[in-house]
């Protein structure tokens, strides 16, 4: 069979080198110019208890999601892999470990569950790993060697990757892993005829790989991040680790604080001092930050908060994806507390979007909540990021010399933005507060002042419209079925739309990195042109749908997916087909 797209899953227990398998395969594929997307699924426990899997999808054309189904399942351990058999496509393949057969009970044996429409291939994974490394390590490389032969991929690209992934562990580790790879390759060559061939365009250039978390960290640093304060939390910690390593080289610093309240507090302090600062967190952390976000609103101190969403509520599902934090991002504060909410849908938007977040926060003196999610944050994908490096970027409104004469920190202006001086700069001093205040910043509780100041804080959201990107409309403009989506679900929606198109149903999508504020004119026009509107998202309540309903008065078909895995494009396609058949009734 000839393939131009393949999805492979490695299934093992935590500590089995599953993540490294994904890394090597992804790196190798990207190196020969393929498009790749990798999703790791693991449990919240570190070793011994949890199952871990890495799914790698690679293709000769652009990928938007993890797709549906597996072409190949690699069962590094027997029992834990059984449940993944149901994801294998009809006609798909399974590689199982024949060196463990007999040592596990039949009901726990992967091979005894393989159904006739799936083809099983035995490989002595553990035995060959032992032969190569003298330990149980290297199982993943034995399997990768077999895969390389199985799809007739060039072995050199893998050897390259092994060298780079294990470079920090020394030559011996590299050698035994290459040996494990070769043993797997040779075993398959000896025992199975070459039936499959993956189409490779030899002219393709190597592609860059990144994760959403990496892209956010890099985007922030490239646009002048000087200070990061955070508290470790899955799945956002990676952003902090990058900042901790990179910022000192650029004259900045990263602080691990005692909790998330302290983290956002320090970030506000740094912004008060005129420095671009950021924190990154997830559900439990953003909950703790809500009072400080309100302080940012009231005192008009800029701040940027990345929330890499995971399953909730409470501690929830730390290692699973969900888009359940839209409501807390939009409304999680006492009083009338407007804030900017953004949601990137892929790694490219993580990079460019976080830079926009900084520009908006600084210019309009407002909190910006940047909603990524676990899938987007951790998945590794091939990208084309347009670098934009300017580490001295500053969009703060500074006072004119006239304004400095009698400095009013909260001067009433047409656009709602008042001039801001920062400590260390000569000219004027002021004090700020989370209390309602007059134009000087002094506490003031008069009704007129409160009305005037509240209106000023909201007015900024009108004036910032000019700086915001347009909403994009993708798909077929003439379609009667319209979809509105947000965040990483967009990728699954785009592939669902492709499937529907192949089935003769036209659709279009409106997507915007801006959740609030939004280009309402464009959304209204889009919705007016649709006979059916579908709003899919990864939560139980339909949080984005609720926003769109109240904002635009629409009555959409809501698709609520309280997710633990990325959304299936087939599921989206199915909803499109349903809507289509209702239309033609």
């Amino acid at each position, binding site marked *: 069979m000839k393939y131009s797209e393949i999805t492979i899953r490695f299934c093992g227990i935590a500590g089995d080198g599953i993540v490294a398998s994904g890394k090597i395969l992804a790196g190798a594929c990207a190196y020969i110019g393929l498009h790749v997307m990798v999703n790791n699924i693991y449990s919240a426990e570190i070793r011994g208890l949890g199952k871990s899997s890495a799914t790698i999808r690679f293709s000769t054309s652009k990928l938007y999601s993890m797709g549906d189904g597996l072409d190949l399942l690699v069962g590094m351990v027997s029992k834990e892999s059984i449940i993944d058999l149901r994801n294998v496509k009809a006609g798909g393949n399974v590689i199982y470990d024949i060196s463990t057969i007999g040592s596990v009970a039949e009901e726990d044996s992967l091979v005894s569950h393989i159904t006739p429409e799936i083809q099983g291939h035995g490989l002595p994974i553990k035995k060959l790993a032992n032969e190569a490394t003298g330990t149980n390590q290297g199982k993943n490389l034995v399997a990768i060697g077999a895969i390389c032969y199985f799809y007739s991929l060039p072995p050199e690209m893998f050897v390259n990757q092994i060298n780079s992934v294990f470079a920090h562990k020394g030559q011996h580790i590299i050698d035994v892993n290459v040996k494990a790879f070769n043993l797997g390759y040779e075993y398959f060559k000896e025992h199975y005829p070459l039936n499959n061939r993956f189409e490779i365009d030899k002219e393709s250039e190597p592609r860059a790989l990144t994760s959403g978390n990496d892209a956010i960290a890099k985007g922030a640093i490239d646009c002048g991040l000087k200070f990061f304060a955070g508290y470790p939390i899955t799945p956002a910690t990676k952003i902090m680790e990058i900042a901790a390593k990179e910022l000192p080289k650029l004259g900045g610093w990263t602080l691990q604080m005692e909790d998330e309240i302290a*983290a956002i507090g320090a970030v506000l302090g740094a912004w008060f001092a005129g420095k671009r600062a950021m924190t990154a967190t997830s559900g439990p952390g953003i909950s703790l930050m809500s009072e400080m976000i309100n302080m940012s609103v009231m005192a008009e101190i800029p701040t940027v908060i990345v929330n890499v969403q995971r399953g909730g509520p409470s501690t929830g599902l730390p290692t699973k994806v969900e888009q359940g934090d839209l409501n807390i991002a939009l409304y999680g504060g006492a009083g009338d507390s407007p804030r900017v909410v953004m949601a990137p849908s892929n790694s490219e938007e993580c990079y460019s979007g976080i830079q926009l977040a900084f520009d908006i926060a600084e210019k309009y003196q407002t909190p910006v909540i940047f909603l990524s999610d676990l899938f987007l944050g951790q998945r590794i994908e091939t990208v084309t990021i347009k670098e934009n490096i300017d580490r001295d970027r500053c969009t703060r409104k500074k006072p004119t010399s006239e304004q400095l004469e009698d400095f009013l920190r909260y001067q009433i202006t047409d656009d709602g933005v008042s001039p801001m001086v920062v*400590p260390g700069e000569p000219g004027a*001093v002021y004090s700020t507060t989370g209390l309602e205040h007059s134009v000087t910043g002094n506490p003031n509780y008069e009704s007129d002042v409160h009305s005037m100041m509240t209106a000023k804080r909201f007015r900024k959201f009108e004036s910032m419209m000019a700086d915001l990107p347009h909403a994009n409309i993708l798909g077929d403009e003439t379609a009667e079925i319209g979809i509105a989506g947000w965040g990483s679900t967009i990728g699954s929606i785009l592939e669902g739309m492709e499937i529907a198109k192949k089935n003769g149903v036209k659709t279009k999508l409106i997507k915007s990195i801006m959740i609030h504020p939004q280009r309402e004119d464009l959304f209204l026009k889009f919705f007016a042109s649709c006979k059916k509107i579908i709003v899919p998202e990864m939560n139980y309540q339909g949080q984005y749908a609720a926003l769109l309903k109240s904002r635009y008065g629409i009555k959409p078909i809501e698709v609520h997916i309280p997710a633990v895995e990325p959304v299936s494009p087939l599921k989206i396609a199915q909803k499109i087909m349903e809507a289509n058949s209702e239309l033609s009734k």
Partner: protein
Amino acid sequence: MSFLSKKTVLEEFEKAKASKTKQWRDNLPTWCPGCGHFTGLHGLYEAAETLKIPPKDFVVVSGIGCSGRFPFFIKGFGLHGLHGRAIPIATGIKVASPDLTVVVVGGDGDGVGIGGGHFPHAARSNFNLTYILLDNSIYGLTKGQISPTSPMSMKSGTSPYGNIARPLNPTTLALAYGATFVARTFSRERDMVSELITKAISHKGFSFIHDLSPCVVFNKVVTYDSWNDAAVKLPEEHDTLDRSRAMMLAESTDPIYQGLFFREEIASFDDHVQMVKDGLNQPD
């Protein structure tokens, strides 16, 4: 009983204002007559004056409570933050702009109650901050409820049958947390307050001042009189490098010692950052 009357402090304030540019705040302190906080404010004025800190480089950060209003009465930048969160905000300011002089001012509820989780980490990190905790053993701005430093059995609106918990001692906490400058003052002693605040600001590293600052309106148990009778200066021979001896003296409730308990000059947070920036510490 001898303490600064509001009148005296206002005179001081006017004097200070007259001697400065117009950037001195026009705001008059809002505390009740007799409040201990006037002495702390005066001490901060004196320190800024003595150390010639330019207002543009002077930042005072506070939490919520009576002491929270400090930023509105000083000449410099001020941030009246959230209840208990002055320390992390000040940390962000100082780490982002190390050349600034950053002083944190807060009360007992703010510092060892709601914000009690921040104090140890600022101390052990040896950030170059000065933290003045004005302790009146009461929640004054909410009109008199027990605080983490209120004595046992003290009755209040929220402890009508008497306080059941033992009081915290902020001085011993600071010593235990590893603060590198620890002093206790009493708002009756104006000169000592000014002198120690000045020393604290000059100290390189985390400096802590536990200022006993009575609430004359709501606290009928911990008062000028009760502290007056017990407060004495530290023995002259006390060695300020002896942390365990300092701890013993700080634990004493009769007498209550005032003065500089402990001071050591070790690498501050800023020094560690400099070492990294100079390439002396590398990641693996």
